[in-house]
């Protein structure tokens, strides 16, 4: 005989304000099979859990239903509670009376009535629950980091320092990412390269880290603890093991007109090149679109001059397959395209630049060797105007609805550095709001105003146009209620950032969820902020949401801690809600194996007694519980209904349907 306990949570006023929790608990007392029903203010609290434990013991409960928030929130919590009281954790069902009821309905009677039905439905299901025991699966003690920017580098170093093997897959020819392009970093104004390049070297020299540069993730199979990843190693036409990074090839290459992406296309580079001086690996790569030899078959100069014979025009993409226990995604960002913002004149005027371009123009290793010169005529700009929120906070469809978060701070940085380096320049900043939450951030911005005399103008620019060789920046000054036009020499656009587009493919391969802005979704903003809902996948850096370097590094280390926590385990508890075939009914028809994405189903010949001493050998399905992920595709494909899913059995779901529909 089933002895069910029902526990209705108020969630403070979150549920209790719209659902008559007392009534719900009262009604449940009369439900067949229910022997205990109670309500409490916070069921997830220590006291609430104590109430459940006590009831389980006192009333000898065989199953419990908690009417509370979403099971995605606290199902695990209440399962642990049950387990602590000696009840199998899978004898717990949650009725979601918060997200699916109290929060979306206004009428108390209506919400209460629905809550009663939802709880009844959970009771109907729990009556058919069976105790389940989680199996175990081994953990591959190796991590994969996708993306070799500061987030990926930090995560890899932390994981490797804990003694685990880590591979960094970077699609570019070098690791370093966006941070390598920056000049100085806020709020300390220390040089970006001075922080980043030693970490890059650490990665290269770390015995546990393998850097797979110029490579992309091609395919991912498996699951937490046991991912099988196929990686494409793109042909760089240079033997990585031989190249010494001497750069002779770069001098000799006759095709020198390739746009230098590292310098934001502000200057050119040879077809064979090393992206920048501190690149890791310090190995050349040939741009096949630009290389004369690869395009026409004639040339081969770099090969002639290469002292170590590293050039290989015949190189093809290769593939490697490796196993990983955990995956960190750190694919980073790019500034948005400005096609939809022609009012700022970016397309028509060379002296309208993005902030990232300014970084390169101020960087000692940049195209102007750190001297700020106008791209149009190489002169020193005297009046520089910054425009913030270009494409950020734009819900009109042209830009991004979110705040890009880093622009206020880097614009203050730029303004400050310019005034310091070139005290004769006049610097104006158009802003909507200056957002500087962070330690020493607002102080930093105020320094730009108070110490360096940067002119901050509250208002937005309506039009930038060229008149008599000057950039006319026409905008509003809301404080003075004026429309002003600033004759400028250089205009810098604080361009919105967006996730690096390759993240979409990565998300699909990992079945990691992604939001409408292409940011990867974390499992829970507060409870599991660095974990993807897909077990074993962790998120670091801007791929999860806009953030600056300090935050990115913190998040990367948090990811590493999560990964280490996973990799130290020898075995993982597997989800016990897996498919199970009824051999007596199985036809062995292979339909289920055809739809299994994990190859969890195999077939065995099994002898069955037919009665009268006769036996029969039949081919029947067998599910590997360590491999099965519990999606249930096989259950529907099976014509005889021999395949069922533990925890979501046909009978359970049918009983839920019945409970909902019954008037």
């Amino acid at each position, binding site marked *: 005989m089933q002895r069910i306990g029902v526990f209705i949570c108020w969630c403070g006023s979150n549920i209790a304000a719209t659902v008559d929790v007392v009534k719900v608990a009262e009604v449940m007392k009369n439900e067949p099979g229910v022997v205990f029903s109670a309500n409490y203010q916070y069921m997830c609290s220590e006291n609430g859990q104590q109430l459940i434990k006590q009831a389980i013991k006192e009333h000898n409960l065989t199953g419990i239903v908690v009417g509370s928030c979403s099971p995605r929130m606290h199902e695990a919590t209440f399962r642990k509670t049950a387990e602590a009281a000696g009840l199998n954790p899978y004898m717990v069902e949650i009725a979601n009376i918060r997200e699916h009821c109290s929060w979306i309905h206004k009428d108390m009677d209506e919400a209460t009535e629905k809550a009663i039905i939802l709880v009844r439905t959970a009771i109907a299901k729990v009556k058919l629950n069976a105790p389940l025991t989680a199996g175990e699966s081994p953990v591959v003690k190796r991590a994969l980091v996708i993306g070799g920017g500061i987030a990926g580098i930090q995560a890899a170093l932390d994981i490797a320092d804990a003694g685990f093997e880590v591979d960094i897959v970077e699609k570019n020819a070098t690791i370093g990412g966006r941070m390598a392009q920056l000049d100085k970093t806020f709020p300390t104004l220390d040089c970006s390269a001075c922080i980043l390049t030693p970490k890059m070297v650490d990665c290269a020299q770390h015995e546990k880290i393998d850097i797979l540069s110029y490579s992309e993730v091609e395919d991912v199979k498996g699951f937490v603890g046991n991912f099988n990843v196929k990686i494409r190693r793109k042909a760089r036409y240079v033997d990585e093991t031989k190249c010494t990074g001497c750069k002779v090839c770069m001098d000799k290459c006759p095709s020198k007109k390739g746009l230098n992406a590292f310098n934001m296309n502000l200057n050119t580079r040879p077809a064979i090149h090393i992206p920048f001086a501190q690149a890791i690996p310090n190995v050349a790569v040939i741009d096949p679109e630009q290389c004369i030899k690869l395009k026409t078959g004639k040339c081969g100069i770099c090969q002639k001059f290469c002292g170590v014979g590293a050039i290989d025009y015949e190189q093809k993409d290769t593939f490697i397959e490796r196993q990983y226990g955990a995956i960190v995604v750190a694919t980073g960002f790019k500034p948005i395209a400005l096609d939809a913002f022609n009012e700022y004149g970016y397309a028509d005027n060379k002296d309208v630049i993005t902030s990232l371009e300014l970084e390169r123009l101020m960087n000692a290793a940049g195209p102007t060797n750190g001297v700020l010169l106008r791209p149009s005529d190489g002169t020193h700009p005297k009046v520089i105007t910054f425009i913030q929120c270009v494409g950020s906070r734009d819900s009109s469809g042209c830009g991004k609805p979110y705040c890009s978060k880093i622009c206020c701070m880097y614009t203050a940085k730029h303004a400050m550095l310019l005034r310091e380096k070139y005290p004769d320049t006049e610097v104006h900043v158009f802003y909507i709001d200056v957002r500087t939450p962070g330690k020493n951030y607002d102080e930093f911005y105020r320094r730009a105003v108070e110490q360096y005399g940067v002119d901050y103008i509250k208002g937005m620019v309506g039009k930038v146009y060229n008149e008599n060789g000057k950039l006319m920046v026409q905008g509003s000054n809301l404080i003075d209620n004026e429309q002003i036009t600033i004759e400028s020499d250089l205009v810098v656009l604080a361009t919105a950032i967006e996730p690096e587009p390759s993240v979409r493919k990565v998300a699909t391969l990992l079945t990691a969820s992604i939001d409408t802005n292409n940011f990867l979704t974390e499992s829970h903003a507060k409870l599991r902020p660095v974990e993807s809902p897909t077990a074993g996948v962790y998120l670091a850096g801007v791929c999860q949401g806009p953030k600056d370097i300090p935050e990115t590094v913190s998040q990367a280390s948090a990811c590493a801690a999560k990964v280490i926590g996973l990799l130290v385990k020898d075995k993982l508890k597997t989800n016990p809600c897996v498919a199970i075939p*009824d051999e007596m009914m199985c*036809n062995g*028809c*292979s*339909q289920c194996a*055809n739809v299994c994405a994990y190859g969890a189903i195999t077939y065995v010949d099994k002898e069955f007694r037919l009665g009268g001493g006769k036996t029969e050998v039949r081919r029947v399905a067998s599910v590997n519980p360590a491999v099965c992920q519990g999606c249930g595709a096989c259950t529907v*494909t099976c*014509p005889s*209904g021999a395949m*069922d899913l533990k925890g979501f059995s046909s009978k359970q779901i049918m009983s839920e349907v019945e409970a909902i529909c019954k008037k």
Partner: protein
Amino acid sequence: MKDVEMKMLERAKALLESGEVARVIGWKKGDFCFDPAPASFETVEELDNFVYDYFCGANLSKYLIQMSKKEGKTAVFLKPCDTYSFNQLVKEHRIKRENVYVIAVECMAKLDIEKIKAKGISMVESVEVVGKEVKVTSAYGVETLYKPDVVLTKCATCTKTHQVKDEEIILHERPARDVDRFEEVAKLEAMTADERFAFWREQLSKCIRCNACRNVCPACSCVKCVFDNPASGIAAKANDDKFEEQLFHVIRAFHVAGRCTDCGECSRVCPQNIPLHLLNRKFIKDIDNLYGEYQAGETDEGKTPLTSYTEGDAEPNDVMNGEAK
């Protein structure tokens, strides 16, 4: 047809005598000329009752599920349409292919005794087919009928050709036929929902849940049918409500979707003459339209349309609104 029967008998005898096969599955004579029944012949003597004529419409492939498990090889006579069911069963590992010896036989379109009776002829004694003419001899004399009027429904729109043959007995090259087996389905589709509902309510209300369709269907070969399984939640209940019929036939059609070879046995055996094949053909038509033409049982390997997919498959809502290509 007599010559075909002679040759079949000859081969059956030879195969049994030589011990090459342990049994032959064919048809044996019934009480009347029009009710031959599937039978297994294990000795040459038993072959005295062997028959193959215009009333041998039954599909023999399903018997092989059990027979192929027995000791020794089983020879089977398969008409073109039966070979698709055979392939499908091999694909689903239900028939042990290596234990079966397939003899492909000429079909020539089988006759439907119900249709002959419907012409007002009773007590049929014998039938002779010459070209498109069917001479029916009954206690009341001889009548000549136009053959296309009295063939089995499944034969009327058949375009199938032999897919399996270890050997063959008189197979004439059949001219390609221009028949549209989906005509009836399209007619139904063109009706309003109310009309369709009325049509099926009338048809399905005739169902007596005798399970003949299920028993004959080569795709319905489950060790234990889901309707007989109390754990399924849909095990047979009292069949006194229209819903039960509706549910039974919808689920049965869905279960065989993508696997049904359109052999037409369900309609042939239905004692209530419910056009059950029109259910299965709807699935076949939709599959052809949405996922490319597919004939179940054309081969004995590969996935079915419902166990495969493409990334660009039509969206269900578009399908419902008739916007899917």
